[in-house]
């Protein structure tokens, strides 16, 4: 039909997605692909941080984002959403966690619910790109070091340069105004 689907209104994803789905080989076909995704989403909701292959993480991330946004939008008294949660979270304590912990956590969030960090290859391992996939607001220590870079030499020099630049600029503008008057 080539027309956009209009039966359901879906809020925009907050992460970039691939234009087409990735095809993960599986003897069970497209159904098995979803089961693979389900394993990752379930683990993510349960553990809040995990190390996976990049392709798997990038694909599962969209599903996790959509699941959380559906849960926030419709709540736990909406039958189709409950069916969704039932499919995506085979460990049933995660269903409770989704509605009772994650929905309040992300209710007022303006940014994405998940994050992806690059992870190193630790020899010996496969050479597939590894990433760390995590939920925002998790209880673990942050992966990125929050250090101030303000006292680095180039930043100090540039700040001084900025100050001089502005002084010069205002001085010039003042001179021009005087000339006009």
């Amino acid at each position, binding site marked *: 039909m080539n027309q956009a689907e209009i039966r359901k209104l879906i809020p925009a994803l907050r992460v970039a997605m691939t234009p087409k789905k990735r095809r993960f080989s599986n003897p069970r076909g497209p159904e098995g692909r979803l089961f693979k995704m389900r394993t990752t989403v379930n683990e993510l909701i349960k553990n809040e941080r995990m190390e996976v292959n990049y392709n798997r993480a990038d694909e599962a991330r969209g599903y996790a984002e959509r699941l959380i946004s559906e849960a926030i939008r419709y709540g736990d008294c909406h039958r189709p959403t409950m069916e969704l949660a039932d499919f995506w979270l085979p460990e049933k304590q995660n269903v409770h966690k989704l509605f009772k912990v994650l929905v309040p956590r992300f209710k007022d969030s303006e940014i994405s619910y998940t994050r992806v960090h690059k992870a190193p290859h630790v020899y010996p391992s496969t050479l597939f790109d590894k990433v760390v996939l995590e939920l925002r607001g998790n209880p673990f220590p942050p992966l990125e070091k929050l250090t101030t*870079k*303000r006292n680095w030499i*180039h*930043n100090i020099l*540039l700040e001084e*340069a*900025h100050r*001089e*630049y502005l002084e010069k*600029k205002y001085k010039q503008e003042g001179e021009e105004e005087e000339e006009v008057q």
Partner: protein
Amino acid sequence: MSLLSVTRSILYGGKNNLQKIEVINLLLQQNTSVLTGGTGGGATTRNMSRMKKTRPFWQPKSTRTLYPEELTPSNEAFGSEVISDQHTSSSTTSPLKCEPWPRGVWSEASMRCGVIARKIGVYPMWDNNGRRLLTTLLEVPDNEVVKYIPPEKLLEHTHPKKNNNTHTKEMAALVVGADPIDPRLVTKEYYGVFADSGLLPKKKLTKFLITPDAKLPPGTPLYASHYRPGQYVDVLGTTIDRGFQGVMKRWLFKGMPATHGVTKSHRRPGNIGSGGEKARVLPGQKMPGHMGNKKRILRGLKIWRVNTKYNVMWVQGPAIPGATGSYVYVYDSWYHHCRHTPDNPPPFPTFFQDEEEGVEEEMYHPDLHVFSKPSIAFNEK
């Protein structure tokens, strides 16, 4: 390394009189070898490289490896401020840095400059007889002349043995750029190309061969109104990369039946050579291989409609090479029957849209149905 890249990013903003930056320059003089080696000029090619790629003399290497610069947000903003100051101050007076050049007069031997366009999609239009036409929309994104290469200079850089246009007749060239980008992302050499014209560096740069009477001063903007409805153009683009493909997709072979005893050769080419005394495969045999990602030119395409507000032109046909969003080059058509005649000369050397008053927003070909007109009615004959 971060120090280097930061300094470069500021330096490439253009000329500066800043003392502090001079200090950084002094600091960097100790590392001169690193600085020159890291940026990578256009002329350096490795000896044993199999992928040897020579660049034309007017186009140095544009990109460089971007390291995390670890700038504070205020310093980041400072860089943007310097860039915007340098590039907006000139626009308040005149975009051209030099005096306007005398404009040539069109003759039948003249060759005009082309434009860089972006393919933004395909949609149908209808002509006055109700016939449906598929048209491709080409956007002309911020095209500006970057450089004029006179014939003598061009001749120096052309291969003496190649019998091309530059030798048979006097040809010059215009370097044209499209889509401005952040100067902090490009190399110093690439930024230098734009220094004379005072433009921001361009994402896409190309050279158009012209006759010297069609020359334009650097900084002249080119618009979609460079072309008029009814004119014919040639469009050069790079086809969609489809990777390694079999004969059925690449050459539209028929394949072999799915059943009737056929095994393991449903999509194979079949026989590739004749027997007898030849006993070899003739050159040019259609075989599996890489498909797409090649330059292809479509010639003699009619322009149906031009929008001067958004700089878009509607060109005949859905088959312009390239995916949606890819760049294409548009030239005046090469075909004899599509060329301009003295009765209908083109805007020459280009259409100076800023100087003209009362330019129509939409220009239509007279044969095209305009949506604001009533439905088509056929009269009794």
